[in-house]
C-alpha cells in the first residue's frame, strides 16, 4: 500500500535542545496513525514538520511522496487538513461565516458546510458567534473546518484534549466517518483510550525518540503476561495461566458457579507506555 507519509532519520534541534531525535516511520494511505507521548515529547514538532510549518534540522520528511518544503504548493495544500491546539477561528464571526471563508479558500461549495456540521452534530448552530461557543463546540467547529475540503490527509494535534466524553464521542464519530471515506489520519494524543479507539498503528514518542511502533492489539499481546484475570463471587480476584492448567482451574471454578467474570489480563497502551518509557503520559 502507498505511503502517504515517510519520515527518515528526522531530527530537530532548537538551539542545544533536542526536540526530535532520529525519528523514522511511515503512514500508509487510509491508515489512522497515532503519535503518542506526554507533553513536550515532540508530537507537535512532528506535525509542524509534516505540514511545512517547521524544517527538520536533519533527515528527510516526505508527504505525498514529495519533500515537505513543497507542501506550500497549492495542489498539496488542498489535500491536507490540519487541526492544531489553537482553533484558528475568527471569534467575532459566526460558525457559518468562518466555514464559508474556508469554502472560498479551498474552492468548496457552501453546501458542504451543512454536511460537516452534521458530522460534528452542530447542524443547527450555524449562526452562533464563535466567541460564545463552549470549548467542546469550538473544538468540533475546528474539526469541521479541518475536513471541510475532504482532505486526503488529516493532521490532528490532540483533537479531544480537555473535552468531556460526550464531545469526544462526537469527534470520534466524525473521524470514523472520514476514515471510512479513505482519509489518512495522523493523530497525536496522550489519551490512550483515544488511541485504542481510533488508531490502526501507534508510535510511542518519548523525549523526541520513537520507543515502540506497532498495532495496539499486537502491542497488548506482546506485553501481556499470559494470564487471565478471574473475579470470583466471593470478591476475590485471581490470575490464571492461559495454558491447560489454567483452563482446568477455570473450569473447576465455573463448574462450582464461583465465577463473577473472567477476562484476558492484557495491559492497556498506558501500561505499556509506562513500562517502555518509565514515564506517565499526562
Amino acid at each position: 500500500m502507498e505511503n502517504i507519509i515517510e519520515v527518515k532519520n528526522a531530527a530537530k534541534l532548537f538551539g542545544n535542545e533536542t526536540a526530535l531525535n532520529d525519528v523514522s516511520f511511515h503512514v500508509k494511505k487510509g491508515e489512522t496513525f497515532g503519535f503518542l507521548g506526554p507533553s513536550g515529547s515532540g508530537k507537535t514538532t512532528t506535525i509542524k514538520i509534516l505540514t511545512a510549518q517547521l524544517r527538520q534540522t536533519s533527515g528527510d520528511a516526505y508527504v505525498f511522496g514529495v519533500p515537505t518544503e513543497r507542501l506550500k504548493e497549492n495542489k498539496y495544500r488542498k489535500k491536507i487538513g490540519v487541526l492544531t491546539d489553537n482553533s484558528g477561528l475568527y471569534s467575532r464571526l459566526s460558525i457559518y461565516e468562518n466555514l464559508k471563508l474556508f469554502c472560498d479558500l479551498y474552492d468548496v461549495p457552501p453546501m458542504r458546510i451543512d454536511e460537516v456540521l452534521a458530522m460534528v452534530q452542530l447542524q443547527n448552530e450555524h449562526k452562533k458567534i464563535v466567541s460564545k461557543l463552549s470549548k467542546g463546540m469550538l473544538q468540533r467547529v475546528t474539526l469541521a473546518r479541518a475536513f471541510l475540503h475532504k482532505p486526503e490527509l488529516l493532521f490532528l494535534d490532540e483533537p479531544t484534549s480537555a473535552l468531556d466524553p460526550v464531545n469526544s464521542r462526537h469527534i470520534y464519530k466524525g473521524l470514523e466517518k472520514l476514515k471510512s471515506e479513505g482519509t489518512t489520519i495522523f493523530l497525536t494524543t496522550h489519551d490512550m483510550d483515544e488511541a485504542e479507539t481510533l488508531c490502526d498503528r501507534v508510535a510511542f514518542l518519548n523525549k523526541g525518540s520513537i520507543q515502540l511502533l506497532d498495532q495496539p492489539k499486537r502491542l497488548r499481546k506482546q506485553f501481556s503476561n499470559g494470564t487471565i484475570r478471574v473475579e470470583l463471587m466471593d470478591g476475590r480476584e485471581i490470575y490464571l495461566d492461559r495454558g491447560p492448567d489454567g483452563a482446568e482451574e477455570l473450569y473447576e471454578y465455573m463448574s462450582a458457579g464461583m465465577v463473577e467474570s473472567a477476562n484476558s489480563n492484557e495491559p492497556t497502551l498506558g501500561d505499556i507506555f509506562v513500562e517502555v518509557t518509565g514515564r506517565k503520559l499526562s
Partner: protein
Amino acid sequence: MTFSLKRSLAIFRKDYKDVSKNLYVSTTVLMPLILAAVYGRTGVETVEVYFLVFNLTFTMVAAYVQSALIAEEKEKNTLRGLMLSPATTAEILGGKSMLSFLGTLIVLVMCAFFMEYQPGNLLIISVASLISIVFYIGIGTLIGLLTRSVMEASVAILPVAFFFSFVPLVKPFMDEYPILKAVNFFPNLQLIELANQIETGAGWGDSWSAILIILGWTVVITSFVVAVYNRKMVDH
C-alpha cells in the same frame, strides 16, 4: 504564480465583517475625518495643511488599520490558518490589504470634500495618492507581521505615524541643517511637493520624478513585506 480574486475577496469579506464588529479599529478612521471637518470650518489656505490631514489618513487608516488587521491575525493564530490554506502569498496579502485600501480611499475623498480641496490636476494627484496608499499599507503590514499583538502594533505604529505625519514640519529648518534635506526624498514629502507643483500648472512631464520616487519606495516596502511574510510561514 496564480492569483485567485475569489480567494482575495473572501478574505476581504471576512475582514469587513470582522472589523465592522471591532470598534477599536473601526473608530480610528474618524480621527482624520474630524480634523478635516474642523479645517473645513476654519478654512485651509496652503497645500501643506491639506496634506497634514491626508498624511494622517495614510498613517492612521492605511498603516494603522492594516497593522491591526495583520497583528490580530497573528495574535489569535488565524494567520497560520490562512497560510496553510491553498491561498498564495499574493492572494492573502492582497485580500488582507483590500479593506485598508478602500477605507483609506473613502476617508481621503471625504476629507478632501470636507476641506473643499480642489487640486490643480486631479488625475496626477490621484495616481500619486493611490501609490502612496499601497506604500502605507506596506508599512502597516510590515508592522503587523513584526509584532505579536494588536496592542504591540498600536505602540509600534506611533513613531511611524508621527514621523510621516509631521516630518513636513522640518522643511523650514532645511537651510539651517542641510542633512534634513534628505527627508525631501521621503514619499510623503514627494507627494506634498507634487501637490504644490500641480497648483502652479505642472503636468505629467513635471510630475514623473515624484511619482517614480513614491513608486520606488512602494516597491521596496512591498518586497520587504513579501520577504518577511514568507519567513513567517515557517517557525524558527
